[in-house]
């Protein structure tokens, strides 16, 4: 039935594939943190439980157990009660029961409660952090991708001196780990020259609001994190584009276009477009690495985004928080991948015609 609508069919198939991937990711996200033998409630009790009487501690522990779905509960609302065995001890839930509860909660948009910021919900902490991360990462990745590809295509087409100087430079840039570059920028431009602030998303004395002061402060704090991600990304993209461009230059259709006497700008347009397509697929494949690297850069700059939320969570063994952030990251990477996949399907007739380039399956 869908045969008549190849585009719709294509989108649905890719969508279905990503949904399966999402389910696997959720499962991994649930089970991996449970590899260790420790019980999160013990950790949280160890932190806050000192100085409490045994009875108080027991009540508090049972409250946490219930909160984190580690014990069976009967009834609902006001009549909720912990199910107890014959000795009066709470009955523990199995891992699978916890998993089912977890999935149910995820589907309702509930990622649990933070240990560290108890009783604050994980979702609320993430909601505060996400705008910062999006504002930093989306423009940086897009700019880095565009600038890198344009420069890479020029290097491939022109070769000569431009390429000889540019290529090792770009290769060097792409060899920098994200966070290392961030550290160097902080050292030189924040600590050394005092041109830009070293930390945070805005100055301490401004309150986030729709005011000029806030936006100018945020912009000032934006510069260093932006460049530390942008430059490395552009370097890496330029290198990929350069070798794709050189490859495309040798193809028959470029030779034919020259034989036909097409204008140089047209030949370059052919070249750029076709070399760009694998680069888009490549972008999809490396999005995970990029976003990961950018999150670590956020940590270097103590930028108030997801990276920082993750770092704080890790330092405090705040498992629900760690899990929440990783799930959000994975989900965004999947959504971004899906978007790129569909986009390439529209841009490259070969993909829909069945001759898949790059991404198989």
């Amino acid at each position, binding site marked *: 039935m869908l045969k008549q609508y190849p585009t719709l069919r294509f989108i649905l198939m890719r969508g279905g594939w990503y949904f399966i991937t999402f389910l696997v990711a959720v499962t991994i996200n649930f089970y991996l943190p449970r590899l260790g033998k420790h019980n999160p409630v013990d950790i949280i009790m160890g932190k806050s439980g000192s100085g409490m009487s045994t009875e108080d501690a027991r009540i508090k522990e049972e409250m946490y157990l219930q909160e984190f779905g580690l014990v069976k509960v009967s009834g609902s609302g006001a009549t909720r009660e912990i199910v107890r065995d014959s000795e009066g001890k709470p009955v523990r839930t199995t891992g699978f029961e916890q998993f089912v509860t977890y999935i149910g909660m995820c589907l309702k948009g509930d990622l649990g409660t933070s240990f560290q910021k108890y009783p604050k919900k994980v979702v609320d902490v993430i909601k505060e952090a996400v705008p910062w991360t999006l504002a930093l990462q989306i423009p940086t990745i897009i700019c880095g991708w565009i600038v890198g590809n344009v420069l890479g295509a020029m290097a491939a087409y022109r070769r000569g001196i431009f390429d000889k100087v540019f290529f090792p430079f770009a290769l060097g840039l792409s060899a920098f780990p994200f966070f290392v570059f961030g550290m160097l920028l902080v050292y030189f431009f924040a600590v050394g020259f005092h041109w830009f602030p070293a930390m945070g998303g805005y100055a301490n004395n401004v309150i986030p609001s729709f005011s000029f002061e806030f936006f100018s402060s945020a912009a000032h704090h934006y510069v260093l994190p932006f460049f530390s991600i942008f430059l490395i990304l552009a370097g890496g993209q330029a290198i990929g584009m350069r070798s794709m461009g050189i490859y495309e230059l040798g*193809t*028959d*259709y470029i*030779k*034919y*276009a*020259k*034989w*036909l*006497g*097409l*204008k*140089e700008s*047209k030949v370059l347009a*052919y070249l750029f*477009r*076709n070399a760009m*397509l694998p680069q888009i697929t490549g972008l999809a494949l490396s999005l995970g690495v990029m976003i990961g690297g950018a999150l670590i850069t956020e940590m270097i700059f103590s930028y108030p985004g997801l990276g920082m939320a993750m770092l704080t969570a890790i330092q405090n063994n705040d498992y629900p928080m760690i899990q929440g952030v990783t799930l959000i990251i994975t989900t965004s990477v999947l959504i971004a991948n899906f978007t790129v996949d569909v986009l390439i399907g529209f*841009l*490259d*007739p*070969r993909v829909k*015609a069945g*001759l898949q380039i790059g991404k198989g399956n």
Partner: protein
Amino acid sequence: MAIFEVEKLGLHYLTRFGQKIHAVTDVSFSMDQGEILGIAGESGCGKSTLVNGLMGLFIPPLYPTCGDVRVDGESLMNRTPEDVRQNVLSRKVSMIPQGAFNALNPTRKVKDIAADVMAAHMKGIDKKQIYERLIERFNLFGMDTKRVLNSHPIQLTAGERQRSVIGISTLLNPQMVIADEPTSALDVTTQKVVIKMIFDLLEKGIFSTMIFITHELPLLRHVADNIAIMYAGEIVEKGTAEQVVFDPRHPYTKALMGAMLSAEPGQKQRKPTAIEGAPPNLAKPIEGCRFAERCPSAKPECKQKKQEIRIVGDRQVRCDYAE
């Protein structure tokens, strides 16, 4: 009057170590209006290099060494790349490449590639005119014009792609067409369709003069008036198609005929014999006859004495001992 003249043309590649590789040396011939010249030879004999030279298209590392190419009396040498691009390519000399599968930009519709060609050579032509002319021209080819024009290359069959390429190459009614192995990699039926299409275009006067390059001599006998055989960058024999195919005089041509599984009825039983050895390295200067190393009838002096083209009967042969 000769419409296409090639005079002592030499072409070389410049490697990045400054070494010159003389891929084509001392090529001369002239063609009259309406003539079809076949060029044959082993792969690597300089055919494809020659094609670029004949179009005046010198993209580094390819450079002209000496000689001249004239279309309608007008030289293609010493012109700026932009002049060649605009005034020679597609208009005066056009090229039908081999392997049409990859010759069309895979991400562009056939009509857009064709429109690019028109836009590159005609100033002030608008889109509507371009597409009208396209449809008119493609209607001549016996294909489902609308569908082919609106398709991406991958949606077309091999035959449709090759015919589209021929259509695009001849769009601007070039004075000269160079077809470089246009039928290789096609099945026999499609080959016939493509050959028929080329001759239809000749008949309709879209173009009249053609160089047909192939390694299939039997095919050349049917399509070409004259045949030139190339070896190691030189033309070693040139005569009418009948002469070269049935009565070769140069030892290389003879060997080539033997090496080819002939489709001629009388030669069915003849087994193909491979030519021993390999062509000389063109990066080094060669003193004597280039074929001497592999020639079954070579004399001791052949390796020292440079062979020049001479007239044997009414054909040209580059061998002092040919009769």
